């Protein structure tokens, strides 16, 4: 490999150190791989919520200076070439001929659409207006209401020609709060937009690997992210009937709702989209009345189907996502960011690293890294862009 290629190569680093400062410096240094960062470069970091976010992000910004640093909290991170889930991950994107415009807003509260519009507009301005091949990367608070509104708000600024990619920040499934970091600020309930201008196309892949089982059902009553009824009957009852296997032996996740969520990771709901494909939606819990609480909002009268998939299905899907992304590139990839749903960890089981490896291999054995999310953003064509139970690849 030429020296120039090595300088441009995406770098990743990880750490399992318990000290936030140490973990941040370790993963950032590893991602830099001895290279000196420049102010136009981008460092993306994904620490677990167990770290003090102020200490971690501050140390990461210091270690990566003068590069721009963005990031968000994660359930866990991962990097290619390493077999386990990582507490802290850093991805170094040397700017080379890319330019990055970063904007952030917090708190987003209920003004999700307006905030998405605002950060997207500002990010575009800071990237020096729109390039020939622009991509919008967003990192949101995974607990911030209807994530579809982020896609809608950003879309109203980008229009159909700019693909959208990104993820909703996650925590340790306690649902107590996520963090975002950009422009030197630590936020909770924040939204970050990174406008990426490139002189050549970037690649985006999105796949989940689940297949439907049972019969398609109509959501006959829903409010926000709660499905009350499927085919006119209590949703949880219908869901449990439709899945052909009993829930796994209950693990104690601290509360019945969280245990239910964990037990349903192997069988997310599929939401039929216009093309007839099913978009994944994980289940967050159930109410005493027998309603299903979902990750993400579900519209009334939409069609859903219970889905199943094993580790092999999910790993193959990751390979397909990488292939999609590679197809859009007109040159060899120099690495990729990956956003994989937290709900995929349990079904992947021992093959968690295989998902990462499949993507790396699909792009020509390049460095890839990412984190397990509370929702993934990916829109290239069509108008739906919020996903769940899915793996999303942004190849550069």
């Amino acid at each position: 490999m030429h020296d120039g290629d090595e300088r441009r190569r995406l770098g990743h680093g990880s750490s399992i150190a318990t000290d936030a400062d140490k973990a941040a410096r370790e993963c950032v240094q590893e991602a830099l791989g001895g290279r000196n960062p420049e102010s136009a470069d981008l460092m993306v970091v994904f620490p677990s919520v167990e770290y003090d976010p102020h200490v971690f992000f501050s140390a990461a910004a210091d270690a990566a200076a003068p590069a721009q640093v963005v990031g968000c909290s994660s359930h866990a991170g991962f990097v290619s070439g390493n077999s386990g889930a990582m507490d802290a991950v850093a991805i170094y994107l040397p700017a080379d001929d890319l330019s990055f415009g970063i904007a952030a807003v917090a708190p987003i509260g209920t003004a999700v659409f307006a905030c998405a519009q605002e950060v997207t507009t500002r990010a575009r301005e800071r990237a020096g207006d729109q390039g020939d091949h622009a991509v919008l990367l967003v990192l949101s608070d995974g607990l911030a209401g209807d994530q579809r509104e982020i896609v809608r708000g950003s879309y109203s600024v980008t229009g159909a020609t700019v693909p959208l990619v990104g993820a909703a920040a996650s925590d340790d499934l306690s649902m107590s709060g996520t963090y975002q970091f950009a422009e030197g600020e630590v936020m909770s309930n924040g939204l970050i937009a990174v406008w990426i201008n490139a002189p050549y196309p970037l690649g985006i892949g999105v796949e989940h690997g689940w297949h439907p089982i049972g019969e398609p059902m109509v959501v006959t009553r829903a409010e926000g992210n709660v499905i009350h009824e499927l085919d006119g009957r209590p949703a949880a009852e219908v869901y449990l009937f439709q899945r052909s296997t009993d829930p796994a032996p209950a693990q104690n996740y601290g509360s019945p709702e969280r245990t239910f969520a964990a037990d349903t990771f192997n069988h997310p709901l599929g939401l039929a989209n216009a093309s007839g494909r099913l978009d994944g939606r994980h289940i967050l819990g159930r109410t005493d009345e027998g309603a299903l609480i979902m990750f993400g909002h579900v519209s009334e009268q939409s069609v859903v189907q219970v889905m199943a998939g094993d580790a092999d299905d999910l790993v193959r899907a990751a390979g397909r996502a990488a292939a999609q992304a590679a197809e859009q590139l007109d040159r060899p990839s120099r690495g990729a960011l990956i956003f994989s749903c937290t709900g995929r960890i349990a079904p992947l089981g021992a093959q968690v690293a295989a998902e990462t490896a499949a993507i790396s291999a699909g792009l020509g054995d390049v460095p890839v890294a990412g984190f397990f999310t509370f929702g993934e953003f990916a829109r290239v064509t069509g108008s739906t862009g919020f996903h769940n139970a899915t793996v999303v690849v942004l190849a550069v």
Partner: protein
Amino acid sequence: MRTVPDSEVERLTEEVSRLRSELAASRAASTRALARATRLAQLVSALGQRTDVTDILERAVCEVAEQFGADIVAVFTPARDGVLTAAQWGFAARDLPAGALTHLAPTGQLSAAAPVKAGPIADFVLPPWLLASRPRHVAWSLLTAREEHLGYLLLLRRGDTPFESAEVQELASVGSRIALAVDNARLYVRSQEQLRRLQQLHNATAALAVVVDVDQAVRDIAEMLVAAGPVEGAAIYLTGPEGDVLAARAGTIDDCPSVLEADEPVELPDTMLFDLGIDGSSLGRLLLIGAHADTVEQRSFLEHLADVGALVLERATLFARIRAQAETDVLTSLPNRWLFMDRLSAAVARCRQHSTDLAVFFIDLDGFKQINDRYGHDAGDQLLVQTAQRLSGSVGAAATTARLGGDEFVVLLEGCTADHAEAYVAPNIQRALDTPSRLQLVDGVVQVRGGGSIGIGTAEATGYDVSALMRAADAAMYAAKQARRRLSLAAG
């Protein structure tokens, strides 16, 4: 044990694989069919709870885009010079041209019978700003509700996914559903607006119903019109001997004329002039500036407000007239006993509070009965009127001169001590009384010198007691009359 040849195993494996993929494809097809069957219901459900037209259209373009796999969806509404973008999904907001878009919608190609036209991009003529998003398939749908043309729905797909014939039919239903939602929202807004105006009218009427002072009434009416009516400024003119004179104004109406000519021209398109009259009698006129009365409802609302204004004004004017009658002596136009006692009570209270004094002059004409008997009641009335005028003139505007009844008059002068009353005021009054009066009789003019007796009472001397004060003044007058009589007898 029979051995199955490898070729057979291979064939069976392939068969199983084929059947599995057929089953999966069939399942996917049925899911897709069901999803398509419910997407109109999804749209109706999403639009159902909305009552704001902008909100409906913005939601509609987003829902249609997601459900029909379109990258761009827009609603265009008719404008004078083309169409306006009412809502859009998929254009970068800054790429949209400003103002009306001409030659965009395929107006001639869509009809009630064929409300949707869909096909590859080559079948359509689209402007460059729209082609910049590189669409490959286009669909236009007419938005029609109750035979009213509300606009067009445009869908663009950037991927190579043509609009199928089933989708074309669905889009016709989608178009009419969106139009219906917009129509319902407009009806809702209109009925809410009517309800709001009725409420405003009710509140304004209730507030104005208690106003009985004309000055306050005109002020309140003008303010009510600006607050409740769709107007920027209101001026009220009251009809009097000098024409229609500005009585009150509110809002942005600084340069209105102080007197409104009978044929005042109404030049500006948003200026309106109403007669404030009941049953043909005009009390004044109402001038409105910046009146937004484009619809029948708005105009009718303004007319209602003007009617309410006229009613309130009439009531206040009537009340003012009745009050004047109740407080005024009809013959002399002086305050009557009721008003005098009212003012006296208030004045005594003030004096008590500030430890000042006041004087009451009790006046009784001398020989009034004889003049009445000799020259008739008309002549007596003339004497009373002339005396009233002279009395008022002798004590000045600060004093209250009143007729108690018959030939009894009183004067109230605040701040007047007993000494001052005796030394300065009483002689003035006496001169007024002693001045001869010329009375017009049927057969000529007669001059009479009536004269009169004056009794003075002061508040301080009577302990700020209104009754005691009046009794003291009356007694003093009686004593004076007796003295004048004795003097007269002595002189005679």
